[in-house]
């Protein structure tokens, strides 16, 4: 584990753990210690981790609802405008406003727009794509995508002090603690 010269700017410090359970414990400890600019990294989603870190659940659900409603109404407006207002044509003696036939498309567009908002919303909120990230400077961090678990505290945290923080993290018996050069 190499030591970065202190004058170099630092992104933060991360501590590596072997198992989910250790991670959970560590996460809650970090939270109790009052760190706010924290994050945890795991090779798969871990239930309750976010609460352990004292963070809130995502609100993306409401965006998706919005998307769905937009789809619903745009579908209706589109069909009503084209077949009743803009160019009314007598199709097989059926009423111009044949609302029952609108349902399939209204449903489909609802789903489509919801899905778009969901996926692209998630990507955007996660600040992706982000191919360069300071964390990738740490060689050990590669394991985060395989079998290792990390807790990280950013230098921008008000309570952050390189040595104290490192010491604190060491106290959680991690596999190791690494500085993340910015």
């Amino acid at each position, binding site marked *: 584990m190499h030591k970065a010269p202190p004058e170099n700017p630092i992104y933060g410090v991360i501590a590596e753990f072997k198992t989910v359970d250790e991670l959970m414990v560590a996460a809650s400890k970090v939270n109790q210690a009052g760190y706010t600019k924290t994050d945890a990294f795991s090779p798969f989603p871990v239930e309750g981790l976010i609460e352990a870190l004292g963070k809130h659940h995502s609100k993306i659900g409401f965006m998706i609802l919005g998307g769905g409603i937009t789809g619903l109404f745009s579908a209706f407006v589109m069909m009503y405008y084209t077949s009743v207002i803009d160019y009314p*044509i*007598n199709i097989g003696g059926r009423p*111009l406003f044949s609302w029952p036939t609108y349902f399939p498309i209204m449903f489909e567009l609802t789903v489509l727009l919801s899905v778009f908002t969901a996926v692209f919303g998630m990507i955007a909120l996660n600040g992706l*794509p982000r*191919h360069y990230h300071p964390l990738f400077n740490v060689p050990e*961090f*590669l394991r985060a995508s395989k079998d290792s678990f990390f807790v990280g505290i950013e230098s921008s945290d008000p309570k952050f002090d390189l040595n104290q923080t490192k010491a604190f993290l060491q106290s959680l018996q991690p596999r190791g603690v690494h500085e993340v050069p910015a």
Partner: protein
Amino acid sequence: MSQLFGRSANTLALLTISVVLLLGGIGVGLAYAIQGSSYVTEVNTFKAQPVPFSHQHHVGGLGIDCRYCHTSVETSAVAGVPPVDTCMNCHKMMWADAPMLKPIRDAHKTGEAIEWNQVNKVPEFVYFNHSAHINKGVSCVSCHGQVNEMPLMRKTQTLYMGFCLDCHRNPQANLRPVEAVTDMDWHPDEEWKKKDKLVHHGIHPKKNFEVHQLTNCSMCHR
């Protein structure tokens, strides 16, 4: 050093995405632009003609009525492009040896027909009938524009289906008294402005219909 990508990668990624989206938008916009452009519609583009016939001179200047040459416009689907004889009626005497009119004279001698380049045309699956429009007070100007100001004939309307529909949906704006249809600079007087032109021409007013008969497919397509 385990970074796969440099710092610039992030901006590059966002840039790529926005460029792709932008190009898509431009592509669509372009398609519309081209289809609406005079390159495709040929609106206001002049065409070389065997004889540079000037409507401006004959209609605007001499005040010859449209129907003098386009004889069948009131009775038939096609307005009719005049035979050489019609030209010669006058040009036997006046400008009898103008070099510009040589093709006419030749045609008159040889009996060969003259090939004009068509300017205003609708596709072959559209059955436009001049007489129906003329007799219901739709002026030549509505589709052909102010020919009295055209030194060379040109298109003034796209003649796309959309153009036809606009008028078929609401004819009011384009209706005149029948006797004024060929009048190039006619202006509605007050009392005409007030009048319900549809009733005047016995065109069934739209209010009677949820579907206006004039927008039926069979009106133009057979």
